[in-house]
């Protein structure tokens, strides 16, 4: 088992012929993902790398291939519309990798996605990987290993660092979800915690947060009453100055709210093992398992 994606995931890649799209499509296929279609308007009827059929529209791709999941690599200025197209075509899972989507575009796109009954992961995220099964996004497959740890994170390379520490120590992962670093995202910590809690293969959960907003505090509150599995957590940005955007649009301390200290406090209060540094993940998990 795993969450969100598995062997049955049939993926359509929006922006398959773009620079990022083609690069990562090859990696996803190499990893064993069922990439059933690509979409680039005007290239309908062609084949990507002589194997993946390209369609003009997501709708065409879905009706021809039965794709159930989309991954989006189109440039930021077209990405919100790509999300709408995916939702409109009836996909149940949409993974938006694109970074730099204006937040107001997302305030308009999200109600559409929710009305369509789809799940959006991202935007501005590394995507989802269920080691040994399927990958929708950019998380390097070679650092992952099948196993019982669920990983959910607002970050990209920091997540790889943590996954790397886990795999090095023989702690494989059920699924790793990058939920994205923007202020408004489709899937939050709680959605993933709830899915990991329900996933019989997952025995413990790693939560990687950062400064800005209150998502980690809400996740901690949720863990305290609704998650029975051990959870360990990390918060990046303990040394970040207030009022400055730390790369991610969502990583900003506004006034006195959204600091790492308050988040780490919330995790501790909820009984979550708090990592002081990424390398702590292994020892903390071993303690709890």
């Amino acid at each position, binding site marked *: 088992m795993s969450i969100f994606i598995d062997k049955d995931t049939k993926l359509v890649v929006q922006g398959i012929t773009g620079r*990022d799209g083609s690069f990562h499509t090859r990696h996803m296929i190499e990893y064993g993902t069922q990439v059933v279609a690509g979409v680039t308007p005007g290239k309908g009827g062609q084949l990507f790398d002589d194997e993946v059929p390209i369609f003009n529209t997501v709708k065409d791709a879905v009706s021809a291939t039965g794709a159930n999941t989309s991954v989006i690599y189109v440039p930021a200025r077209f990405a919100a519309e790509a999300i709408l197209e995916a939702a409109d075509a009836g996909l149940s899972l949409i993974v938006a990798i694109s970074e*730099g989507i*204006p937040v107001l575009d997302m305030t308009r796109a999200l*109600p559409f996605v929710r009305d369509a009954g789809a799940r959006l992961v991202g935007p501005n995220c590394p995507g989802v990987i269920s080691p040994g099964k399927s990958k929708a996004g950019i998380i390097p497959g070679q650092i992952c290993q099948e196993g019982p740890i669920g990983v959910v994170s607002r970050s*990209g390379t920091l997540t790889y660092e943590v996954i*790397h520490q886990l795999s090095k120590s023989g702690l494989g992962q059920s699924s790793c979800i990058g939920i994205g670093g923007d202020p408004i995202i489709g899937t939050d910590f709680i959605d993933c915690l709830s899915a990991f809690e329900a996933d019989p293969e997952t025995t413990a959960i790693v939560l990687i947060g950062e400064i800005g*907003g209150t998502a980690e505090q809400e996740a901690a509150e949720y863990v305290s009453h609704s998650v029975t599995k051990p959870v360990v957590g990390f918060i*990046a940005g303990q*040394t970040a100055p207030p009022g400055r955007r730390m790369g991610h649009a969502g990583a900003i301390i506004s006034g006195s709210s959204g600091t790492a200290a308050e988040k780490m406090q919330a995790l501790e209060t909820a009984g979550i093992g708090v990592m002081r540094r990424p390398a702590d993940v292994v020892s903390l998990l071993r303690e709890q398992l």
Partner: protein
Amino acid sequence: MNLHEYQARALLKSVGIPVPDGDVATTPDEVASIAKRLGGTVVVKAQVHAGGRGKAGGVKLAKNADEAHEHAEKILGMQIKGLMVEKVLVVPAEEIASESYIGVIVDRASEKPVVMVSPAGGVDIEEVAAQTPEKIFKQVVDPRYGLLPHQAMELGFELYGDVKQVRQAGRIMQLLVRAFWNAGASLAEINPLISTPAGDIIALDAKIVVDDNELERRPDIAQLRDVSAEAASEVEAREAGLSYIQLDGNVGCCVNGAGLAMATMDLVKYYDGEPANFLDIGGSSNPEKVVTALRIITSDSNVKAILFNIFGGITRCDDVANGIVTAASQIDITTPIVIRLTGTNEDEAVRILRGAGFEALTDMDEAVQQAVKLAREAA
């Protein structure tokens, strides 16, 4: 991106929100001539990206043009919270019957813009929220509908008793939401929104923060950027596609990915060092970016050691290694460099670095500890 008050009020005016007459100036003579045109008592307001301008002496009343000239001489060129005042806004002094607050922010919880209003205007709204939260009223805005007239009226009735003023304030809220949208803002606020003794409702001060992701498609807003209000190194970084924030420490950090960059800074601190900066070179593998990053870090004289922390995914370690080697040949780097690389093309990177005389580590903790130690030794 923060806009200056004079820029924000121009945006409000452009959608039809009533703002006082007035103009921006860069010299005392200009200030005097604006004050003369306006007649009567005026206010000279420093235009800097900092709160507490009043307390710092950056906002002064002047009874006439001469007094305005005097004040301008003092305010122009003064430093407020480390920022030099290069412009002032000159507006008539308004008689104030009441002060309110209205603002629009993007709210993460509702995933939508939220309009916040308070009859307790003219003071820091965060303090109002902390001390007297019952004086703050909110309305989530469905972006598919905008702020609906009845929602604006409901908020207006929290501010005023007279239905004409309620309608005026409601209309201003709707226009503020429009200005917020037009600017691609993450925050737009009027504080204070005043009523005059004659009963009119006017926006006396305005603040707008623009979502950086909007700037590409809004050149009219992007050109409002005041680079003089930013550190030169941060401007250079932004133009090179790097995300850089200068801090006070002595360990210069160069990392791929914002979360890992923060975690690296935190780890420097964990090992009793002080990070000199946040620097995210992003996901691409362009060696040029690495060169620029090194130039920026080395131009900070506080930096006593440089730490690279690269987790190769999309970023290829060999590209970063090439960037480091190129930079070392172009820039005279006397600061010690500690390099940690792992992931995509790691082996090739190590080969390149060793060829140029650099050592390469693969463990993050080890690299951080070494950089902290080197910085301490050099200090």
